[in-house]
């Protein structure tokens, strides 16, 4: 199964066996969210929401308090700027503040450019800054399943920073580890695909790259392993993100640098607003940009 099919089957089981619910705007109108939701018209646990981004997150929190463990789908991750408040300010705080849990699974879906200011890229950085919420960015079927199982076993809000480009992926992406590397790349979300392309080009140029895929953004899992790879890399590392650089990627880079002797750079969206015209778009780092950055660091 590819990732979309994996999500779809997880969702099917959740609504049919767990009495879970799915909440989404335009749920059925746009191909069942890229075929990631089971086509079960009129199923009472598949709930169409109005186009009211500021209150819909609150409905999801209410469903969570009702014990329904909702899956809340935000079709464009940029819409989280309006949707996020209930998850970050209420659900994330509830256990620490008031002693009860708000288990809600937030599917925030990124895509890659092409729609200008609709803000379609990743925006996981706005979520990671709040205490009490988990942030995860899967790209493969196994990663998605792992994240879902984690959500079902714990009791707080879980932010799944998805990417449309993951939907067709039907393979896994293991880390690439060398005993002694020139540099370690730490890609996030769909930037992992660009990074793997860049690594092929860099290898041809004689550059030895580690690749440590970052799936858990908060808490940042695998810190010790990342440190080990970093220390074994002559030229440090680069976080490659699909969000703006002034977000979680710089936080991770900071933490890694504080614990190591190596520099960690950041590559992400440029510090400018995307336009509709292709030449005005603002896309995650291309393989070429990653290659150029590595070569610049290595002065090659």
């Amino acid at each position, binding site marked *: 199964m590819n990732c979309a099919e994996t999500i779809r089957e997880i969702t099917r089981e959740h609504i049919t066996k767990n009495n879970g619910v799915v909440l989404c705007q335009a749920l059925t109108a746009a191909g069942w969210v890229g075929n990631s939701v089971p086509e079960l018209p009129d199923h009472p646990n598949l709930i169409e929401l109005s186009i009211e981004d500021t*209150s819909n997150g609150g409905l999801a929190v209410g469903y969570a308090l009702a014990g329904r463990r909702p899956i809340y789908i935000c079709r464009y991750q940029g819409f989280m700027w309006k949707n996020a408040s209930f998850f970050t300010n209420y659900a994330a705080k509830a256990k620490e503040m008031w002693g009860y849990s708000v288990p809600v699974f937030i599917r925030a879906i990124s895509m890659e450019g092409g729609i200008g200011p609709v803000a379609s890229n990743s925006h996981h950085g706005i979520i990671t800054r709040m205490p009490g919420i988990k942030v995860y960015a899967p790209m493969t079927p196994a990663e998605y399943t792992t994240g879902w199982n984690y959500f079902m076993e714990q009791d707080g809000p879980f932010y799944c920073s998805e990417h449309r480009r993951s939907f067709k992926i039907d393979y896994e992406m293991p880390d690439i580890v060398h005993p002694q590397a020139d540099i370690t790349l730490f890609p996030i979300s769909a930037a992992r695909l660009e990074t793997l392309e860049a690594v092929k080009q860099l290898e041809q140029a004689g550059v030895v790259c580690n690749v440590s895929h970052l799936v858990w953004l908060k808490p940042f899992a695998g810190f010790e392993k990342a440190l080990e790879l970093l220390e074994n890399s002559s030229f440090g590392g680069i976080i490659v993100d699909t969000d703006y650089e002034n977000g979680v990627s710089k936080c991770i880079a900071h933490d890694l640098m504080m614990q190591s002797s190596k520099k960690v750079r950041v590559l992400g969206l440029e510090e400018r607003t995307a336009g509709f015209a292709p030449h005005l778009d603002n896309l995650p780092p291309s393989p070429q940009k990653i290659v150029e950055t590595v070569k610049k660091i290595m002065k090659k």
Partner: protein
Amino acid sequence: MRSAHLGAIPKISQTFTEYESLEIFEKICLCRSFERNAAKAYDEKLVPGFPVYLSLGQEAISAGLSLIFHESIKRFVQHRCHDIYICWDGDIKALRDELLGLPSGCSKGMGGSASIHSPETGLFGHDGLLGTQIPIAVGYALGTNQITLAVMGDAAAEEGYVLGAMGEAVTKKAPVFFVCYDNNLSLLTEIKVRRSWSIVDEAKAKGMPAVDITNDPWLVAHYAKALSKQLPAFLNIRTCRELWHAGSGCDGPPEWNRYELVKKEMAVLGLEKEANKIEKETENFVDSIWNERRN
């Protein structure tokens, strides 16, 4: 429009039993004694440096509602909700300790006055952002199909997500009873300065029954019972906040004194003697509870 008699139904109190009227009055007294003590504790600086939102003057609404909606109903509320906590049998000592910032508080001191939560008694407060409790209440009602009380103030009613959630409640036929404690003030800014529309008209336009009344507790109970059969529904209740938005300050007497009006009505019902006894007993009871923390 605002008055002590808005929507009044003559002799409505006489449609309730003596027991019910005494219960209403006892709850009112309990709330008022608690809030007076809280104000005193605030003045004595026992409250550790955060604002308190006292419900003095608004308690008749909660007393009326709690007569109809019993303990099992989940209540989603915002700041200025001490009366709601008390009227549904919340532990007064835990509320006191919450205001004092103690670990024995109902939210272990984390919520303070603004964010009272007591899930074990069915009370869910807000998160400090005005009105967030309303969409959550609608989601809860849809998720459980249980009658749910969604309480807001007249300022929260202006939040876009409150209006959006009211629409969703109508669309999906959520069993939500919306109540607006309308004291006309956001801090000190009156409704007429803030908006040109009425929340009752807004509720009606969305397709739910909506009524605008004064804070007579018997009238409140009457409409709570009637509208609870046609949910979602909206009840806007004009009331008077006796003290400042936050803290214990007072700018003078309220537009109308509901407490005095209720006492008069108790006398009309032939319950003056019982009311006086309740008034004194609750005062002594609540004073003793607060004095535990003064010694």
